[in-house]
């Protein structure tokens, strides 16, 4: 079993009468890319800040790299990096100077700066100040800044927020590369499940401060996978026809509905066989539950997502 990097146990945070986090319990193991999904105000950033020790919890416990006491947690945080909300940079400093500051903060050598600038495609920024960078460049610099201390666990809060489509793809590639090349465990948040689905290995859906579902990539794919939806009044005969066709992966959903999970490109053949067997097919076609719909179904249909 791989090592547990982060374990939160019933973590709650209350602001006045508002419960920003309500008994949040998750576990992140080494090598995971854990996607925290939730609409704006769901508590994603609050939870990330608690992990980083920027805000205190009102209830619950946190475990980082096996450490649970205050001093141990503080020590464990030296093995982590974060970029929460907007990229936290010194606008008057260049990319290199920003990295030098973070290297000094972490008490690490400046040797890696050139590699990181190259990795984040910022090596040609020269004397350009961070305030004159595009949002994409600032996001990349913020990530470079978190990497200077060689973290084992990276926390990225909405890293693609405000980026254009090419910037989003680029950011996704960067994160994927960090995981593959450096073996970093990542916790990243987004309010778009569709976007996270292209990178995350595990998901936690945070809604109104509560984790309402944790699911792996494989299980999510199963729950939202594509299928042929067949609607007929004679389900029993339809099953016989499917068996004769050699279709094995199907599910009788109701007295009138069957979901077929294979031969998705062969709907015409299936339809022809059903019609030739004198069955009334009222509807047949491929369909897929969109990730957004899946999310909305879980969260009760908030249209902002």
């Amino acid at each position, binding site marked *: 079993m791989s090592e547990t990097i982060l374990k939160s146990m019933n973590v709650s945070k209350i602001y006045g009468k508002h419960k920003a986090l309500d008994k949040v319990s998750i576990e992140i193991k080494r090598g995971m890319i854990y996607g925290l999904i939730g609409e704006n105000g769901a508590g994603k950033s609050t939870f990330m*800040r608690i992990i*980083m020790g920027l805000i205190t919890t009102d209830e619950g416990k946190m475990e980082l790299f096996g450490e649970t006491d205050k001093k141990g947690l503080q020590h464990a945080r030296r093995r982590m990096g*974060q970029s929460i909300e907007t990229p*936290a940079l010194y606008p008057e400093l260049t990319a290199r100077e920003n990295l030098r*500051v973070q290297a000094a*903060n*972490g008490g690490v050598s400046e040797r890696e700066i050139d590699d990181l600038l190259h990795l984040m495609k910022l090596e040609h920024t020269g004397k350009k100040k961070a305030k004159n960078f595009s949002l994409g460049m600032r996001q990349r610099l913020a990530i470079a*800044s978190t990497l200077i201390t060689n973290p084992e666990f990276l926390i990225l809060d909405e890293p693609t927020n405000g980026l254009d489509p090419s910037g989003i793809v680029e950011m996704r590639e960067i994160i994927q590369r960090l995981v593959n090349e450096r073996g970093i465990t990542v916790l990243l948040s987004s309010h778009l499940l569709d976007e996270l689905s292209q990178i995350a290995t595990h998901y936690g859906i945070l809604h109104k401060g509560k984790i309402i579902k944790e699911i792996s990539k494989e299980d999510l794919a199963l729950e939202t996978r594509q299928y042929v939806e067949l609607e007929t009044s004679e389900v029993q005969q339809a099953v016989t026809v499917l068996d004769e066709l050699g279709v094995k992966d199907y599910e009788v959903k109701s007295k009138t509905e069957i979901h077929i999970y294979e031969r998705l490109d062969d709907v015409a053949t299936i339809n022809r066989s059903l019609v030739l067997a004198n069955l009334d097919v009222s509807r047949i076609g491929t369909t897929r539950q969109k990730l957004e719909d899946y999310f909305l179904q879980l969260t009760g249909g908030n249209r902002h997502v």
Partner: protein
Amino acid sequence: MFNLLAAEKIKLSRSKKLMIVIGIFLLLPIIQVVNTQLNVSNGKELVQAVDTVINGASGILMIDKNGLTILLVISAFISFFIGEEFQNGTIRNALSLGRSRMHYYLSKLATAAIVSLLGVFVLTAMGMISFSIVFGFGSVAEISNYLPYAMKTFSTLYLLILANVSVYVMISFQTKNSGVSMVWCFLYTIATGFLPDIFQQTENFKHVSDWFTETFLFYYDFASIEGLATYPEMNLVSLITILLSSTLGIILFNRTDIK
């Protein structure tokens, strides 16, 4: 702590605000010596008790002469220097690495203290040089042994400034915003600068004013024997102010949520 100070050094080496502060402290004595020379040319007679600095030797009192200006300039610098860390979110970079909040606070206080020392040193040195050039080095009346006097006076005056620096740092960490911090620092400076004058008029509050460092900075004569006799009291009040404000500042900062 030393790592955090190394980071501050990199930030300050590119800081335009620091350049502005040093620029002000460099130019201020030159403007003042020109102004004094014009007044003298127009027949004004310089009196040490009134004009504070009248020659190179009394240039050691440049902090006393420019107390309010120094405090306002330094409070503005500290407000930006700390407030921007909160506003840019860069404070998270250091704290999320597991750095202790007390160390972070103390590194900011130490940096502010060093910048203030540099500022008042530049101001005093420029004051002594420029007044010496125009009015000669001369001497300070009632003072026979100049060097020990100069060292004691400068360190006492700097300690009085440092006490305020410590309060400004505390205010900046609590307000978490450059603008708001600047307003509160100005209000603190103005209030503690002018309230003692009112308190001095009353019997009951007369002694309360002696617990404000501004009372010494604005209302005491540092070139008199009586003034010299109160140096230990000034140092004590300054140290107590630094200790109390820093302790309170660290306690409050430890309880603060960082956005």
